[in-house]
């Protein structure tokens, strides 16, 4: 049955649509502007005549970026950190969460507290920095001189993600596990053949969370990776931004494109791969919020 809208509903609908469209355009505009500014001519960018669409199109800013070896280096470093970092974090988190999800585990309350306490209380930047320095010495003594492995192994573990996994594992019916055990499955087989397939979507969500935090990691990578060839993309972007927005360094700029265009090109380059995989990961990303750590 189609009902006629009342006046109050109509007004609210109009307000909703208007504000939503305004907000969505505000969300989108900086990206569109970044793309336009990265491919516009120097005068157009510097005098501010680029507002929405590019003017005097050039691709020299992108060419400059792509000819920069450091850029490709940074990209491959980020891929390295994301791939190995996610694998390591998932390995630790899945095993730990599986053990924690078992009611028969002794001292279960203690282990849970051990985990959750790190969400309540963190030591802070400086103690962590001192700790990572000490870890670096230990790693060097063990012959691991590549700082990237320090970032992969020592950083990025999040108690919240383990708790998400634990809750998912707790939701697996125990009858299925018992059936597997009757069929002669070992503990490890139960995990890989029953629990992991049955909580695929939570595992995908958690892996996505880890991967995103790895991809985005900046602060500790900048503090701990001393060799500039090993810097990930985020550190590279920041260093370039600091260089290109410094008026003194940029005083002698005499290219055909604006120095700002290079930064915009860099921003676009770092967003594009995410935009490409965005449609595929979007639903897991949205799901992640709803599974939340809320526990009765």
């Amino acid at each position, binding site marked *: 049955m189609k009902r006629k809208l009342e006046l109050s509903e109509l007004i609210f609908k109009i307000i909703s649509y208007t504000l939503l469209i305004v907000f969505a355009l505000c969300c989108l505009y900086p990206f569109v*502007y970044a793309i336009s500014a990265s491919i516009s001519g120097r005068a157009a960018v510097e005098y501010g005549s680029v507002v929405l669409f590019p003017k005097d199109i050039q691709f020299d800013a992108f060419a400059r970026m792509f000819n920069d070896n450091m850029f490709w280096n940074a990209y491959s470093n980020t891929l390295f950190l994301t791939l190995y970092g996610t694998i390591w974090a998932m390995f630790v988190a899945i095993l730990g969460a599986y053990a924690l999800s078992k009611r028969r585990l002794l001292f279960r309350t203690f282990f849970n507290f051990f985990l959750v306490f*790190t969400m309540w209380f963190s030591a802070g*930047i*400086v103690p962590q920095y001192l700790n990572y320095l000490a870890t670096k010495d230990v790693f060097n003594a063990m012959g691991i001189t590549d700082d990237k492995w320090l970032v992969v192994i020592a950083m990025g573990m999040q108690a919240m993600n383990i708790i998400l996994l634990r809750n998912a594992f707790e939701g697996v019916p125990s009858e299925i596990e018992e059936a597997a055990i009757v069929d002669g499955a070992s*503990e490890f087989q139960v995990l890989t053949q029953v629990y992991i397939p049955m909580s695929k979507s939570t595992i995908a969500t958690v892996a996505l969370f880890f991967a995103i935090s790895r991809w985005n990691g*900046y602060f500790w990578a900048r503090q701990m990776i001393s060799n500039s060839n090993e810097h990930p993309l985020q550190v590279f972007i920041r260093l370039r931004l600091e260089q290109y*927005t410094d008026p003194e360094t940029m005083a002698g700029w005499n290219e055909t494109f604006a120095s700002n265009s290079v930064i915009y090109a860099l921003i676009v380059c770092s*967003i594009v791969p995410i935009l490409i995989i965005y449609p595929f990961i979007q639903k897991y990303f949205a799901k992640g*919020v709803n599974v939340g750590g809320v526990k009765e």
Partner: protein
Amino acid sequence: MKAKAADFLDYDQESGIYLENPEQAVRDDVEKHYWRHVGRTIVKDWRLYLMLVPMLLVFLFWRYFPMYELLGCFKVSDNVLPVSQQLFSGFSYFKRLLFAGDGLSTDFWRALRNTFLLSFYGLCFGFPMPIILALFFNEVRSNITRSVVQVLTYLPKFMSTVVMTSLVTMLVKQGSLTTGMGIVSRFLAGAGLISQEVAQAGLLNNPAFFRSIYQISGIWESAGYDSIVFFAAIIAISPTSYEAAQIDGADKMAQMKYVVLPSILSTIVIMLITRIGSLLNIGYEKVLLLYNPNTYVTADVVSTFAYRNGMGTGAGNGIAAAAEMMNNVIGMLLVIGANTIARKASNTSLY
């Protein structure tokens, strides 16, 4: 406690004889030899406990060892010796930070105030935005239109903090009209909202604008994404509730007040509690990437204060650790307090 024979037996009233109670016997055995029982269970179930080991080690090494380093706030720190070899100095760093009244102490109080204010403004302006957005999303009847708008609003969440702050920096950057002033500064100056000089100096160099930039970029970044959870709560409301309200003559505002709001209240409470719990855990990365010495007055938070004093050429690790200790202890009390209130109020706790 010594086990008596009768403890292992159940007295059967009908037959008048003692029956053996094996369960009770096992329970008593476990009680008597608790650690032997623990050892046996672990040996029998060693695979499960082995799985726990990597996680425990990771957390021990890189979450709990730093807490040990944090004890440097009670020690005479010279930045060279490990914490275990330093001399105990009691609360001198805390006294220094809180009561000395010199430049360092003033800076600390400023940082504490900024930390609180940035979070508090986030709570006031950043928190309601996703709820309002979710209400608006609910008005869009066409699924395709709504999905497109939703996806657009989630988009900024996918940027890293560095890319987001770089974009913000570029949009409000300094420069004259001939050397590339940021487009947002240009727009604001053109609309007469800020003066030409302010725009030329760059909004990020002006302490008056830091908090606004921080909050607005925060809303831009995460309001859309945060609205997911509220929107999920709203679409879970049964259409019959609206129909009943309409039959009773409720207009849109009345429906909001009596149907929508009560239904999503528990979600709002939970999200609010999480927010209050992390009131002092302000994202230092974003502040670090957006501030500069010109804006310390409004931008410097405890983490960045500690960072400058501990890792750079500042007042030393002891002072930095003491500052973070105070910040984190207050933060922890807020989390536990908020969680307790949540448990009392709604039988829902977060941890």
